[in-house]
């Protein structure tokens, strides 16, 4: 690691922020100049420690940021930086050791359907068909059948699985499974969709198509998405904001707005990834992550 990179680490990365975002009109992260905006999720001084053999091991340290409605937040970081742990805290699977985390101003305690989760290995119910898997949420919540049935068809269509509605889960490919998983969460109309490296296990082509789908859904529904990935390109092509965590313990070391996903929507192609600007962002983020 040369000194230059070390310096970059501790200086605020001016260069990243200085890149012009002339086309960007989408949701933007909160900045001081803008004045307060109504945050959806507020993460306040969150610490998380595991108890290890030689005392507590810190996984997350002083995490502090807000997520605003309509944002597509991508969290990047080296493996083992606690990004999945952060998602689990927001989902309510685990509680932070210190600090507080709120949804619409209310402390998050345990899980509920207002925060939908898409897992890396979708825990779909093999005993049900695709349709019944998607209908699971509304059915459990006691939504009347005649109300959720048309919704299920709508979401099947949205994720392009109408023809596979009556298939069993084991008949689906990995990409299709992830589509079912997304539809299953979205049908509940959660306030935020939490996605934990959802496409990490997919092949390149499938991955691109589910990325497109996710981007499209975000754009069309205005849903807030919190997306964990270790893939810099994926974060740049999807996110409206990128947060980088450091390794051991996970701390926020970068938090920047990006606009490539909007460009992808406008151009109907991911060619933007060949632009000089994209390249620059990619390099910077990669260096930042690898310098950990």
């Amino acid at each position: 690691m040369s000194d230059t990179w070390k310096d970059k680490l501790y200086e605020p990365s001016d260069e990243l922020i200085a890149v012009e975002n002339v086309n960007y009109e989408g949701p933007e992260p909160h900045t001081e100049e803008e004045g307060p905006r109504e945050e959806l999720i507020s993460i306040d001084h969150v610490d998380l420690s595991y108890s290890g053999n030689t005392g507590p091991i810190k996984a997350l340290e002083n995490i502090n940021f807000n997520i605003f409605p309509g944002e597509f937040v991508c969290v990047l970081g080296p493996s083992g930086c606690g990004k999945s742990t952060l998602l689990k805290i927001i989902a309510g699977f685990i509680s932070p050791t210190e600090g507080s985390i709120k949804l619409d101003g209310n402390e998050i305690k345990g899980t509920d359907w207002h925060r939908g989760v898409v897992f890396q290995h979708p825990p779909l119910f093999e005993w049900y068909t695709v349709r019944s898997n998607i209908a699971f949420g509304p059915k459990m919540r006691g939504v009347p059948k005649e109300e959720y049935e048309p919704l299920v068809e709508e979401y099947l269509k949205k994720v392009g699985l109408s023809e596979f509605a009556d298939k069993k889960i084991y008949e689906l490919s990995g990409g299709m499974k992830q589509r079912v998983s997304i539809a299953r969460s979205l049908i509940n109309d959660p306030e935020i969709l939490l996605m934990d490296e959802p496409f990490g296990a997919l092949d390149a082509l499938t991955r691109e198509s589910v990325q497109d789908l996710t981007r499209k859904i975000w754009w069309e529904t205005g849903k807030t998405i919190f997306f964990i990935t270790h893939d810099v390109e994926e974060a740049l092509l999807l996110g409206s904001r990128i947060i980088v965590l450091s390794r051991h313990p996970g701390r926020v070391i970068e938090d920047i707005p990006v606009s490539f996903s909007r460009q992808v929507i406008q151009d109907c192609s991911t060619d933007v990834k060949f632009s000089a600007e994209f390249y620059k962002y990619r390099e910077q983020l990669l260096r930042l992550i690898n310098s950990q």
Partner: protein
Amino acid sequence: MKRPKIERFLTIGTVAAIFIAWILLTTVGGVKELFIPSPKSVWQAFIDTFRDGYKGSTLLQHIGTSLKRLVIAYLLVVVTAVPLGLLSGYNSKIRAILEPIIEFYRPLPPLAYYTILVLWMGIDEGSKLALLYLAGFAPVYISCVAGVVRIKEDYIYGAQTLGATKRQIFFYVIFPAALTDVFTGLRTALGVEYTTLVAAEMVAATAGIGWMVLDASNYLRSDVVFMGVIIMGITGILLDKLIQLIEKKIVHWKGRA
């Protein structure tokens, strides 16, 4: 598909080889009828008991009596051990109550506690059913607990984030997810109950395939003993196949998920 054919051939070949060895031993080998009765006399014993019966009951009645005991005890196991096992897997407090009892009696030889059961429930059907029931309960209970504990927590988390309550998770997620293990337990239980059957029919029975074999052995009727054992073996295989068939129908995703 050449491989399954070879395996089928091997299976049939093995059975045939044993059969041929049996014939050779009893004819050319000159083994006494008492030790290994010839296939011919076993067949004759089968025809005789089938037509005239053995000590008051026909062969079908003997089989029927045993199967009735087996099925009643088995159904009792299904309706009690499955829910209790699943609940124990889901709720550690229930498990803490039940597990010591089951862990204690499970390794005991059935004959050891059969005398106590006879003392409590008399020498009639009650104690026999209780013995078979206890023998079948443990394997089903244990595999149900294992089935629930084995479920990946993401399944539970997933259901929770979709809005399911604890109760709903139990019925719509835990139960179906554990079904593969439940069936493993059910198959094991059938085998264990079958092996316990002879023991159950040792005391004060007048009919039953197990009793028939025991009684015949007292009179050194090796032909009847052999015939009874072969019939028990075949019915055991048939019952197991039946459960496998039901399993395939219900747990259609097994091995494919």
